[in-house]
């Protein structure tokens, strides 16, 4: 675990809050395991089309064949990558760059300047990301390539081909091998139309991870801001804010979902936004309760009398003390978002097929009448279980790391 220790070049700087939390976090072995698991998950999500795809990386055509193609070498997989795939790669690269610059900042940049530098880096990266995505969506064409390369290999039309680890596509069906249990060809079995379960599980990682993050991100941010303002000010602002919260809570979620689904095309992003919009009220109420309790305490009074800006009082002083319930709620929320998506699929409002998502696979596994196809619900369930556990344990570790009273000697 040496790699994750931070070396600080200038001893005069001391350790910042972020560094402290990081050190506490990485001391615990469970947290490290969870961290590595989440990194693996992210990597799988980013590189999914390179891990599981029915098109080979490279294929050489046979020398007996039509004169146009004989002997030529093609790269079907790379040709078929969509604008979405490239956007995900770009986002991963940008994220990696940000993480590295974070490390570099902690070593090379003066702590007083660090926030400003960080903000600048974040804004540059965001701009690059957005521009990149827009350009990619415009310039990468939509192609359709449904050639059966394995059949070509078997039939002799192609001589060599290098396939990815799982040589199946998530949209490919083969009704002759539908509903087979795990076997040599399909390591985790096939579903009701013959698609490979392992491949769909891998591609589903993208969907499930993004659902979790975006939904919880929206609900967390909106909820914390709302709750903080309501709890701190009290009085009229609290009144009006709570009325708004009550109205939001009382509108039946399904209604909103159906209405939004009706108006906007059936897309993953819309579902994430809906889940986020309908769940911020819980976090707001937690933060409000905690802030109501905290605002009369001495350290808050001290901060106010010092004349610190409101933003600082709320988020640098009060929030770390009131974070505990929100942390629990957020870590559960990520998994909860996955479950809500699964329930929506069960009721028919989830992502459109053939896009795989763990929730959708789970609901198909459940609703087959009659015989019990265990592999259809077991593997997605296992994936959800591990992800949920990892997030939650990490969240608990984070909560413990933030708690100043648990600080162990460095």
């Amino acid at each position: 675990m040496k790699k994750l220790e931070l070396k600080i070049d200038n001893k005069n700087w001391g350790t910042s809050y972020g560094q402290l939390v990081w050190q506490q976090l990485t001391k615990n072995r469970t947290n490290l395991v969870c961290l590595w698991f989440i990194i693996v998950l992210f990597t799988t999500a980013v590189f999914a089309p390179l891990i599981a795809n029915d098109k080979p990386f490279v294929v050489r055509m046979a020398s007996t064949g039509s004169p146009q193609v004989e002997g030529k070498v093609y790269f079907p997989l790379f040709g078929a990558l969509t604008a979405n795939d490239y956007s995900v790669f770009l986002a991963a690269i940008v994220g990696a760059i940000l993480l590295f610059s974070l490390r570099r900042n902690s070593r090379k940049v003066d702590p007083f300047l660090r926030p400003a530098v960080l903000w600048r880096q974040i804004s540059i990266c965001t701009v690059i990301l957005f521009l990149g995505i827009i350009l990619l969506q415009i310039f990468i064409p939509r192609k359709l390539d449904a050639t059966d390369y394995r059949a070509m290999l078997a039939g002799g039309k192609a001589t060599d081909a290098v396939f990815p680890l799982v040589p199946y596509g998530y949209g490919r069906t083969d009704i002759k091998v539908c509903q087979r249990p795990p076997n040599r060809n399909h390591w985790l079995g096939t579903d009701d139309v013959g698609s490979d379960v392992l491949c769909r599980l891998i591609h589903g990682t993208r969907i499930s991870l993004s659902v979790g993050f975006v939904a919880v991100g929206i609900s967390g941010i909106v909820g914390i801001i709302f709750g903080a303002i309501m709890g701190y000010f009290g009085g009229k602002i609290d009144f009006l804010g709570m009325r708004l919260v009550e109205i939001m809570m009382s509108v039946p979620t399904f209604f909103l979902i159906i209405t939004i689904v009706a108006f906007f095309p059936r897309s993953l992003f819309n579902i994430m936004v809906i889940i986020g919009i309908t769940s911020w009220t819980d976090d707001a109420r937690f933060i409000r309760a905690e802030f109501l309790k905290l605002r009369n305490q001495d350290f808050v009074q001290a901060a106010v009398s010092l004349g610190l800006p409101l933003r600082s009082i709320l988020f640098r002083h009060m929030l770390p003390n009131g974070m505990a319930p929100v942390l629990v709620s957020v870590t559960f929320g990520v998994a909860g978002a996955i479950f809500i998506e699964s329930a929506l699929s069960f009721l028919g409002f989830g992502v459109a097929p053939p896009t795989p998502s763990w929730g959708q696979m789970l609901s198909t596994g459940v609703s087959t009448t009659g015989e019990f196809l265990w592999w259809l619900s077991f593997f997605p369930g296992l994936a959800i279980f591990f992800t949920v556990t990892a997030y939650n344990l990490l969240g608990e570790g984070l909560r413990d790391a933030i708690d100043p009273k648990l600080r162990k000697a460095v």
Partner: protein
Amino acid sequence: MNTRSGWFTFLLFLLLLAMILLQVLSMVQSDRLYERLNFLLETISSRQMPASKAEPNLTAQSAQKYPGDEGDWLVWDLSGEVRTLNLLNVDATLDTRYIVSGTIIEPLFEQDLDADKEKLKPKLAEKMDISEDGLEITIKLKDNIYFSDGVPVTADDIIFTFETMMNPKIDCADLRNYFDNITGAVKLDNRRVKFVMKERYWKTISMIGSFYVFPRHTYQFNDPNEFNKRISNPIGSGPYVFEKWDVGQQIVLRRNENYWDKKPNIKKIVFKFISNATAALQALRSHDTDMFEPGSEQVTDMPKDPQFSKEFRTIIFWDPSFGYWYIGWNEQRAFFKDRRVRQAMTCLTDRKAMVEQLTRGKGAVVTGTFYIYGRQNDPNIQPWPYDPQKAAQLLDEAGWKDTDGDGIRDKDGIPFRFKYSYVAGNISAEQMARLLKDDAAKVGIEVIPNPTEWSIFIGNVNARDFDVVELMWGGVIEEDPYQIFHSSQIQGRGNNYVSFNNRQADELMERARRELDEEKRYALYHQFHRILHEEQPYTFLMTRPRYYFIDKRFENVIVHKLGIDLFEWYVPKEKQRYK
């Protein structure tokens, strides 16, 4: 001691106690509410009952019954709860008919279950005379028939039912449509009614045949809304009488001891509503229920279990009311104007494999809109084969080729990419969407599955705002395809939403409507079937038989050509479960 904490714990305990009390009360209350509801309904209806005038000849009739031991109940599990027991109401579904039609309220004639075409047997009516020009039908009721309260069935009841149906304020628009052709019903005498029609139409004759007779003395109303609201406690002349409806749980019928005809042996029929398929199977196996309709997987796997086969009977029969699945191609879109494209799409759907996998081989591919074992269907027409190469060829012929190398065919700058709409939550539709998407991709067509919520789906279909839809039609033993395929039904909210417009087909349908001679009519429909097969306005997918699991203690369960008749069943005395 801190008084605050004391108060606090006390309040907490109080709250707990209150909640427990509330639950208990609520459980008792809700059941009392059901009882009150049923009681209220009964008292309302009983108030409208006049004293019976004619004394029914009980001794002679009650001796008549079906052979076998009397007694026992039949507990039938229907998958979804019905919303109304009023047969004339537009929300009456097939399940409503199972509960009420023939059991409580009887029609004038009933379908002969052993025929392969529409053949009517006398039920309440004795005979039907059709005039020479086919425009007048005279019905003569049997003698000595009466409702469950003893009041005799007369021509007034037929007139009443007819007028109620045609009343625009009564909520039964779709049924009314079929009687549109009738200009009036005339009472000739106490037992005879004459129906006068505008034009010759064979379907009107069969609709008159299956006409239900509602008792005027219990259903008459001043305000049409009274009738619309009367969703429970149906009363009629049938062998069963309505006993109660526990909303959300069960509907109970008991045998009409004053029945004018042969009485069935089963004393009570209880309808339960279990929507979950696994739960329904478990309920059957624990003998909570006696009968239900399983899915294809269950009906294939359960009989393999010897214990199951010892206790339960598996019945499979072809039922015209089941209907068929289809994919509709919107001919107003550029892609599907050309019939070769539609034929190509049909060649891309592997219907045989669908039948194998989705119905475990029990179903059948459908080639047209008629019941596959009925006389209107031409059995010599072979379905289009699953042949992607032929599809590619047809597409090339129609001018759809991949000119820009992106793998998708196009023509005149339009890429062959369309949305495949189906009802969200429908598993078989989703499976078919994924299969079609993959098969079509192999020939260069991009299919975008578009699951839509039911109400929005209907809206889109009515507004013709779709590329392709996947749906299902219910069926009858003999049907008139005019509503679905005639060109006059394209505009507005008609049912020809794929905009199928074929001169020849129109003519055939119009001629067939007027044709009262059966054989000639079937010949016309065979020609029509051939045109459908060539034009492929739909890709006709498949149909399957009906399945039932029935407790083996019921004897004499005969599977006729067209279905089962539970009045014939009985349970031997030693095996009876309920008293």
